[in-house]
């Protein structure tokens, strides 16, 4: 009998939460760690990654009380992209700093008394610690639809309708851009970058890849091959295969947070191989487009809209030969 009670208790504990199991004002939410009971309308959310989770929460107007961040050269914490896209910092936004990647401050999180913690698969390593503080959900990234990540975060935060309205606006802008630039359909592109004298070619570069694909541009075969092999971002490639990067458009990025200027990406290429631009027709003909990294990697609708306008402006300025 004793064994039966223990077994039944353990089995009950192992079962996922259902709507009936959750307390009043709570609901069952499916996430990477199973099903959790979370507040219907969370009032104190902690985001475990600045430029993905917190960025989305801020955009949809969720009530964020704490976030992961990074330390700048002076040792002051900041939220990458959140600062640049929405102008928020830890000092003035009311969002508390709860640590850096792999060095989260669990006591600081607990002190904020959150009612919901939202993270990614990467943060699941410390799942038990987060769950001891508040209901925690971990959202999958990198699926076939990259926007699903933001949608699931918005859903957990109880702001799905806001997210859907923003999504509809983005779709409408996209439709207009596609209609305005039919020539972009089927044009090829390569996302390249020279860093520390090494050539990086990207299969995926966050929002930039999403917007380019939405506009109908296609990756060069090398990037397609990387994506097919499951490469998440990109690879360091020998400069010797530079001619294989021939494309109608070349995209590069500069990082404002590192103090880069618009001229730096090109200068890095020239330092590694002075005549690189002559080798790549798109560069020689003025179709080498440099964008800020802070705008290019994220999936917030503000970033996607900015990318949409920047890309269409550049592409319209120097169209690729038909």
């Amino acid at each position, binding site marked *: 009998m004793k064994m039966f009670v223990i077994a039944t208790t353990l089995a009950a504990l192992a079962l996922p939460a259902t709507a009936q199991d959750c307390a009043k004002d709570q609901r069952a939410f499916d996430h990477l760690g199973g099903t959790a009971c979370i507040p219907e309308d969370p009032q104190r959310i902690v985001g475990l990654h600045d430029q993905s989770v917190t960025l989305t929460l801020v955009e949809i107007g969720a009530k964020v009380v704490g976030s992961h961040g990074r330390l700048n050269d002076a040792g002051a914490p900041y939220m990458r992209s959140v600062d640049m896209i929405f102008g928020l910092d830890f000092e003035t936004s009311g969002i508390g700093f709860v640590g850096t990647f792999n060095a989260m401050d669990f006591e600081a999180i607990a002190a904020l008394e959150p009612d919901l913690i939202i993270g990614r698969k990467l943060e699941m390593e410390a799942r038990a610690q987060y769950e001891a503080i508040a209901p925690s959900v971990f959202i999958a990234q990198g699926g076939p639809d990259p926007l699903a990540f933001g949608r699931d975060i918005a859903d957990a935060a109880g702001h799905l309708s806001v997210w859907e309205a923003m999504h509809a606006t983005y779709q409408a802008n996209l439709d207009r851009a596609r209609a305005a630039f039919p020539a972009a359909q089927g044009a090829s592109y390569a996302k390249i970058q020279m860093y520390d004298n090494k050539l990086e070619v990207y299969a995926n570069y966050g929002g930039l890849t999403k917007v380019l694909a939405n506009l109908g541009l296609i990756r060069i075969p090398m990037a397609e091959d990387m994506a097919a092999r499951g490469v998440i971002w990109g690879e*360091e*490639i020998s400069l*010797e295969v530079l001619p294989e990067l021939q494309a109608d458009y070349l995209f590069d990025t500069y990082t404002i947070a590192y103090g880069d200027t618009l001229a730096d990406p090109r200068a890095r290429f020239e330092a590694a191989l002075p005549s690189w631009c002559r080798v790549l027709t798109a560069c020689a003909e003025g179709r080498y487009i440099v964008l800020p990294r802070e705008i290019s990697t994220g999936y917030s609708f503000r970033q996607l809209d900015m990318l949409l306008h920047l890309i269409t402006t550049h592409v319209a300025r120097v169209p690729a030969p038909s």
Partner: protein
Amino acid sequence: MTALLRSGIVGSGTVFALGALALAFGWHIAVGAKVIPLSVVIDALATPDPREFDHMVIRDLRLPRALFAVLVGGALAVAGALMQGTTRNPLAEPGLLGLLSGASFAVVMAVGVFDVANPALTPLIAAIGALGAASIVWLIATSAPGGATPLTLVLSGAAVTAFLGALISIANLLDEDSFETLRVWLTGTLAGRSTGVMLWALPWLIAGMGVALVVARQVTALSMGDETATGLGVDVTRLKALVLFSVVALTAAAVAIAGPMGFVGLIVPHAARLIFGHDYRVIVPFCAIFGATFLLVADIAARMVLSPVEVSTGIVTALLGAPFFVWLVRARL
């Protein structure tokens, strides 16, 4: 008779070693991610055309990289040989005794924390780091019961390397943006290295190599023991100071150019001793040639195995060096 035999070995060894180096150098610039016919390679060297991309690949990418491999491989191998001869420790080399991590730590802190990215200062900073780490390793080993034995030196080196690695990790955690630029360099790489840094490292390399060649004869005496060397008229203290300078200068130059490249200084001197015995007048120059050849071949593997993706050359040297280290420990300790 023995002298004649030895001079014969050295003579034919010289021809063999220089031939192997020339072959490896030629191989290095003839192969790569892009297939270039041999005739084009020769044209690129003999009658370069700056408009030809293949010529650019040979002259601007492969040739400098081969040169870096020659300099770094030669420097680390000679540093390892001097360390092994002076300490009579078969496991001594810049990596295992903490000099590489000391030099790397100093460069990482200078660039990441103090924002000192001047290529002219990089070799000096690396030298200070290497010297500091060597001193700490020596102090720890000598204060251990039994003194500075091969085992205590290697253990002290491992401890200092782990400690400095932990400090680098902490600094990285506190400011990941600044340390991002050093991520690949810390694995030891010849890809895309700056000619500017190489030019600033060259005087250190020449000075270190020059001293190594000058003291090589006395190192042979020292390798037989301090008392024997003193009996043969060697000023042991002065000699050790000169060897220390040479080792630190060579390690600093190598680290400034390519980051920490482990095990080159372990494998190559053993190979040289296997062929030429224990005369450091012969071992030192041959280590320079063999070290250059070894790193050229390792770098060919780094460029070709996953082509067009490149792996750090330091990863290849570690893959080759770690099993050799295990064999050495089993065979010689």
